């Protein structure tokens, strides 16, 4: 027995956004304990928002995450508008969708090309992958650039846009500014079709371990659109509620090993948000080319294999390009860049689809428009429990793997979710304990001379 007892210790899981660790205890009888530890330092957004002006909410909450700031801005402005009973429609609504398309493209392409694809081809990073597969990396960067161009034009800059305002925008683009992007978007859309086919042909690990343990998928659903900014909160197990009802069904729990709160569905426990959930609940609303391509490659719903999230992301990128082109084609600038906003004592909430899944905000404001309470539930905290379940369920089927391969698979299973730990808080540490006896063997990256792990 002693010769089989070992510890695999990886000092950090790379290629995720943010800081955390993973601790797994297992022995011959199975997996004893799985903890995804998020120890990204807390930043206290919900506390520091109190007393700030309601117009600042989109600028401040954008700083929760550099990868998906638009998602925070969209949920914040929608929640404030819900409080003030405002409903920007027409071109303003379309421009917000267009901006969100840009962020989906930027964020998904960052994950696909820089963080996720190297896993499938066995490289430590995109730069190394680019030496052998230059066309893949270069095309991915081209696609991402088109997303950046959209966000830059509508939002003012790629990271932390400045143009999002409660009621609409500070300034709206002219039609010719948008049509100037069409050629670049069309080129990137065509490259994305190739990306979808490429990702469909990747070697995906099997998902037998999830066959009898179904996920509950949770995403927005809208009567006529693939969900982004609006819709009811629905699930594969029949949940169908408005954002106003969110807190009656979902709860947050503070566990000792994480600075991100754990969310569960009150009736049923862990659930999954993000691209796979969106796709499974809304596949029929994909844009025509995206849907047609999904049919062509025989990719149906529900998708139950979390390793295929890369494929769903590429389909969503294709969808976002088509949607963007469609909006630009019909765009007529609105008469005013934003609706008139007058603060008053009120409360409001909203949920939107961040690239990583459902994002919920609620605010109370006073008569002067100062925020009195804020609540923000990020997608990654909603997925934490499901990530832990994946690891718990997956490990027994792969125990025969050599240790380094097993640990690599655990890291990949986490990366499937594109966890955005900055949203709650930076890197993941992975500790796999086999039995009780620990040896000094350092399997992968635990090299000397690194700053102490946290």
């Amino acid at each position: 027995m002693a010769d089989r007892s070992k510890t695999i210790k990886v000092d950090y899981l790379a290629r995720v956004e943010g800081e955390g660790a993973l601790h797994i205890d297992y022995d011959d009888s199975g997996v004893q304990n799985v903890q995804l530890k998020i120890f990204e330092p807390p930043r206290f957004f919900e506390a520091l928002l109190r007393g700030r002006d309601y117009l600042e909410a989109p600028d401040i909450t954008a700083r929760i995450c550099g990868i998906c700031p638009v998602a925070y801005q969209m949920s914040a402005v929608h929640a404030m508008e819900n409080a003030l009973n405002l409903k920007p429609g027409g071109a303003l609504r379309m421009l917000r969708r267009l901006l969100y398309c840009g962020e989906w493209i930027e964020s998904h392409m960052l994950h696909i090309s820089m963080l996720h694809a190297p896993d499938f081809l066995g490289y430590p990073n995109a730069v190394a992958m680019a030496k052998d597969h230059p066309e893949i990396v270069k095309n991915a960067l081209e696609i991402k650039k088109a997303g950046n161009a959209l966000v830059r034009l509508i939002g003012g800059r790629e990271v932390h846009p400045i143009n999002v305002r409660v009621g609409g925008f500070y300034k709206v683009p002219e039609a010719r500014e948008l049509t100037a992007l069409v050629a670049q978007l069309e080129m990137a859309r065509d490259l994305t079709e190739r990306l979808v086919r490429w990702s469909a042909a990747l070697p995906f690990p099997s998902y037998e371990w999830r066959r009898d343990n179904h996920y509950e998928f949770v995403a927005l659903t809208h009567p006529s659109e693939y969900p982004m900014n609006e819709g009811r909160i629905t699930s594969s197990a029949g949940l169908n509620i408005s954002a106003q009802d969110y807190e009656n069904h979902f709860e947050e729990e503070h566990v000792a090993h994480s600075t991100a709160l754990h969310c569960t569905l009150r009736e049923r426990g862990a659930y999954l948000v993000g691209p796979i959930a969106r796709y499974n609940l809304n596949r029929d609303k994909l844009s025509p080319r995206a849907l047609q391509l999904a049919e062509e490659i025989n990719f149906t719903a529900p998708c139950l294999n979390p390793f295929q999230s890369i494929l769903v992301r590429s389909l969503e990128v294709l969808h976002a390009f088509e949607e963007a082109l469609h909006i630009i084609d019909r765009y007529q600038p609105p008469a005013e860049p934003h609706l008139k906003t007058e603060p008053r004592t009120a409360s409001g909430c909203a949920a939107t689809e961040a690239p990583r899944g459902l994002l919920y905000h609620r605010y109370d404001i006073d008569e002067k428009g100062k925020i009195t309470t804020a609540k923000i539930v990020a997608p990654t905290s909603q997925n934490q429990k499901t990530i832990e379940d994946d690891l718990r369920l997956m490990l027994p089927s792969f125990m025969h793997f050599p240790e380094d391969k097993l640990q690599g698979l655990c890291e990949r299973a986490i990366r499937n979710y594109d966890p955005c730990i900055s949203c709650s808080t930076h890197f993941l540490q992975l500790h796999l304990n086999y039995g009780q006896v620990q040896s000094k063997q350092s399997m992968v990256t635990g090299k000397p001379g690194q700053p102490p792990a946290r």
Partner: protein
Amino acid sequence: MVSNQQPIASSNPPPKLAVWKFTSCDGCQLSLLDCEDELLSLAAQVDIAYFLEASSEVKEGPFDISLVEGSITTPADEERILEVRRQSRFLISIGACATAGGIQALRNFADVQEFTDVVYAHPEYIATLKESTPISGRVAVDFELQGCPINKHQLLEVISAFLHRRAPQVANHSVCIDCKLRGNVCIWVAHGTPCMGPVTHAGCGAICPSYNRGCYACYGPKENPNTESLCHWWDEKLNVENTLIVENLRNFNPLAPSFKVQSEDRQEDGER
């Protein structure tokens, strides 16, 4: 810090670059990944030895250049930054968090225990420092690049300057100058829109005024800003409420000295 020794760019093996994250949103690191056109050529000139957000390959220090994002807010990070400094020939702090505490430094003006109680059900699980501190508050820093987020072209300029051992060409004039260079009509003069542009560090390209909104100072203070005079104008001529003036001084760069001192004066005025 920049002398006329051998440029490290021509060293063999290639210079080692490391990217470190402390308390932050990852946006400043992302600005490096957003260099789509330059990323692969940069990677050909330097050895990206440590960059967890982008690579699972980790090489040992010491490093020629360390880029540090984020502020120091936990006991563990107090230790880690010392080690990063020990391992780094040049340490460049990037972004508002690393240079001026970031939005999380609003705790420095409040009671962090109360903040923890508001956000967490079990405050006892949380290890955090009372204050968020910029990197220069902990270790010696060779260069600070301001902005929330930093501008990627400025970042490439700073990296290239350090590789070639020359002074970085990063303008330290105000957003106003960039606004003029861009040919904007001044939104303050023309529309009476309160704007922090006169005291704010250039680098963004004067985005906000170009989008018809006042600058909210996300690049922090320019060199020698007359913040007091600016606040006086906001107050006297534009009738801006004191609380809004304090909010504009205390958002993403609250510990930048000229903003901090002025915000404390204003806060006291407001309370009097």
